[in-house]
């Protein structure tokens, strides 16, 4: 194996006190970036991919463990690396040329030399003639080219990319990916390794020499393998399809580690499974769940989730929460990347609005811990009302503040839909309205 440039040893990220109820964002992780490779890190949103990138570049310090660059621990931002940002992060008040020159200026390069090098790199990324334009005059794709030029002009040893194509439309992104790969393969890119963070499976398989898939809560490496598919890669090739399917299975089965397919053969890395967690509500809307079930019903109750997302022009990342929510409610089951509707799910999809609410309520109270907890607490209170803070505090023992907030928002959404309880946004209180209180199932029935 070739030379390791940046290496992370047992890095972790957590918030809160070092022992006790701390929130673990990244579980202890080892990771190396080697010379000559494009390394892609894949994971669902909120899995800590970006945090990992920021730790490896030195923008953020790990709570434990250390990051080494050529064997030396780094202290502060890592020298000789560049980042291409998802939002481009260009300075809108500087021209294209000034934007690209800025990092050179920071390094004390003289004006003439600065302009020469910047113009050369602008030429390389295909922005010849746009030097004096302002970023807001350019299209998204052009702007990200400026981002690439700015990153490459300092000839970084490692080029980090944080979802560089996800703010672009599909065609522009595809075009830019192709050009990037061409630069890399023709060695016209003055950089020795590329670290790409993405949530797009195909993008990773298209570009990477090595792929790492992260699991979430906390982030940990689910699988780490090398990909020896010949380039240029074709999306229809069996090897490509198999790899995509494999990654997809890893992502949809949080607790199992599927075997690697034989073709892109490799060394699997870690197989850890965390301790029992407070169940997390997937952030889906009841309407979305119903829509998904109706579509499944149209397809005879069973379909491959990945293809379903593809056909509906959904990012798989946006669709997974809805699938998870439906599975949580017992409306469908997921196996081998296929979703299959259950009898309850069928009943739900075929019911009218009122009946749906009834079915949803039943399923939610039976299977969703948070909703059950809220209802039970409300029923126990003589005036059947409690402040949101009460639940927020409870949730914050298990989630970050932000996630706790989102959990609560989703719970409110579901609770209102199912007419289990209501929420007063002005006073920030949960309550059970009178007529519901009388018709609500008795406490015993609610308990598991």
């Amino acid at each position, binding site marked *: 194996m070739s030379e390791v440039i940046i290496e992370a040893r047992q890095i972790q990220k957590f918030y809160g006190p070092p022992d006790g109820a701390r929130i673990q964002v990244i579980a202890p992780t080892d990771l190396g970036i080697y010379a000559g490779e494009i390394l892609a890190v894949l994971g669902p949103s909120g899995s800590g991919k970006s945090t990992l990138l920021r730790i490896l570049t030195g923008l953020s310090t790990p709570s434990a463990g250390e990051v080494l660059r050529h064997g030396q621990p780094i202290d502060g931002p890592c020298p000789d690396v560049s980042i291409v940002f998802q939002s481009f992060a260009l300075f809108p008040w500087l021209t294209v040329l000034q934007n690209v020159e800025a990092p050179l200026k*920071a390094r004390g390069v003289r*004006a003439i030399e600065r302009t020469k090098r910047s113009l050369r790199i602008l030429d390389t990324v295909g922005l010849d003639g746009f030097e004096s334009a302002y970023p*807001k005059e350019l299209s998204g794709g052009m702007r990200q080219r400026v981002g690439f030029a700015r990153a490459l002009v300092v000839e970084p040893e490692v080029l980090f990319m944080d979802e560089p194509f996800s703010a672009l439309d599909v065609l522009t992104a595809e075009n830019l990916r192709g050009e990037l790969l061409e630069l890399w393969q023709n060695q016209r890119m003055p950089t020795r390794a590329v670290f790409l963070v993405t949530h797009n499976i195909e993008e990773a398989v298209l570009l990477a020499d090595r792929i790492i898939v992260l699991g979430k809560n906390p982030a940990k490496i689910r699988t780490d393998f090398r990909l020896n598919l010949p380039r240029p890669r074709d999306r229809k090739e069996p090897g490509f399809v198999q790899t995509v399917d494999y990654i997809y299975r890893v992502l949809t089965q949080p607790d199992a580690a599927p075997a690697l397919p034989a073709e892109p053969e490799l060394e699997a890395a870690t197989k850890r499974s965390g301790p029992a967690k407070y169940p997390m509500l997937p952030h889906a809307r009841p309407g979305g769940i119903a829509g998904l079930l109706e579509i499944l019903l149209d397809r005879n109750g069973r379909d491959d989730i990945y293809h379903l997302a593809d056909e509906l022009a959904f990012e798989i990342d946006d669709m997974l929460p809805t699938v998870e929510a439906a599975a949580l409610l017992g409306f469908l089951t997921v196996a081998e990347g296929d979703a299959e509707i259950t009898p309850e799910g069928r009943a739900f999809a075929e019911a009218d609005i009122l009946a749906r609410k009834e079915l949803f309520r039943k399923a939610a109270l039976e299977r969703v811990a948070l909703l059950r907890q809220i209802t039970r607490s409300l029923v126990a209170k003589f005036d059947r009302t409690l402040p949101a803070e009460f639940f927020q505090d409870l949730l914050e023992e298990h989630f970050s503040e932000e996630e706790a907030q989102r959990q609560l928002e989703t719970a409110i959404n579901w609770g209102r839909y199912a007419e289990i309880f209501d929420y007063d946004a002005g006073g920030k209180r949960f309550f059970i309205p009178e007529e519901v209180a009388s018709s609500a199932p008795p406490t015993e029935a609610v308990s598991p």
Partner: protein
Amino acid sequence: MRRPGLARALILERTWPLLLDALVGCAVLAAAYGMVATARYWLGTVTPAVEIARSPRALPAYAFYSVVRIAVAYVLSLVFAVAYGYAAAHSRRMESLMVAALDILQSIPVLSFLPGVMLAMVSLFPTRQLGVEFGSILLIFTGQVWNMAFSFYASLKAIPRELREAAVIYRFPRWQRFLDLELPYGAIGLVWNSMVSVAGGWFFLMACEMFVLGKRDFRLPGLGSYLQRAAGAGDTAAIFWGLGAMIGVIVLMDQLVWRPAIAWADKFKFEQVESAPPPRSPILHLLRNSRALAKLRQSTIAPLSERLGLYFSRRAAHIRAQAPPARWKRVLAGLAAAAVVAALAYAAFLTLASLKGIGREEMLGTLAGAGTTFLRVNAALLLAAAWTVPAGVAIGFHPRLARIAQPFVQIAASVPATALFPVVLLGLIRLGGGLGAGSVLLMLLGTQWYVLFNVIAGAMAIPSDLREVAGVFRFSRVDRWKIVILPGIFPYLITGLVTASGGAWNASIVAEYFHFKGRILSTLGLGAQISHATDSGNLDLLLLSTIVMAAMVVSVNRLVWRPLYRLSETRFRLES
């Protein structure tokens, strides 16, 4: 359309509120003590007073003097605001304290510091006008600096994370981060707040160009003193000349300074796509396309900044190689901070101790005055809301009306209320009204515009589909106001009222007490008491009433406006 930066008058989230407020309170008391002590100490010196001419021919020179005062004060404020905002945003330890200080300093009635500052300055520079000039400049400075500082601080905190990270990962030295990222990002907020600040500066300038302290008469040649003198003499022609000159100066400044500044700041808008057509200014166009200027820039500024840039980036690389500061240095800093806190606490104690000399009667008088002024301020606010809400909504809903009304309203609003006071007072006396109700009118004069402009902006921000809903479902007039209009303008109305409330308290100092044709007109009130204490040189009483007024303003902000503001930010926000 919400003006960026203007709606941030209140700070909602802070850490350690009580402790910090106590600390800031101590510092303010200490400063007040220092000022009073200095004033008392220097009270012996003589100050020349300039005779103010009433001839219109003197007006250009007077206008010039006034503009110079405003300009110097503004430049000082700008530098200070940027430095303060920068320091607050970058110092992890001092940040919350500095923000709390801003919050309180914003609400302190500047005019009650007039005597202390003036006396101190006059004694510092006993030669002719310099001292008084400096005093007035310092006063205008304290009136306009805080919102600018806060705006810059808030901008720095709002810089998007990825932009900040880009500056770090590309290793911008501090100067480059400041010039290429922080200053541009804060520019728009600074420009808008500068406009507000300078308008406020005119208000104070008019008041402090001519005033009496004890037996001494301070006069500065300027538009404010001209107007006061004209009104004092009952010279209607001179009054009109003065007002005309005033409006002329303000319109000119708008065209020559603020329009170009706004058009220039447009390039700092943080947006990825061009949204509205950018504002234009012929003056800016001229400056940008002037060959001579471009040449000058090429031969001076460009090489200089290049040289500086190279120097700083090399120095930064050098510093990076060095070790972090030793531990004893941090310990020393901690000790120094503790010493400062102790000194502040002691000074605050001395201040409070000096209040012991005040009799029971005076205490009660102060409280009664505070109550009266409180009622008066609220009456002024109510009156302002009563006429500006219907008028503002009408203007906001009808573009054609807006086109006709806007210029008139803008000119009317730009005339500082303090310039109009003598004129209005003259009218009041001729009509035979007293100052008790008259001072409400004077406060109204100074503060109604904030409310009007905000209501217009709020009415324009109500989406037309909401208004169409009201039309389609045939809402009654009452329902239309209750369901659509009032909730729609609520956040804007609150923002306007907060600003107006602060302004009204400050205005009470000049509105409740007046020298007129050698007589003194006054009415019961905290503002009158401050002015009276100033007049009679009773510095203890001045101190007490200033503290009471500051406390009133701060507690009204905390207890009334902040909760309302929070409500407007959550429940009544239109965009989600």
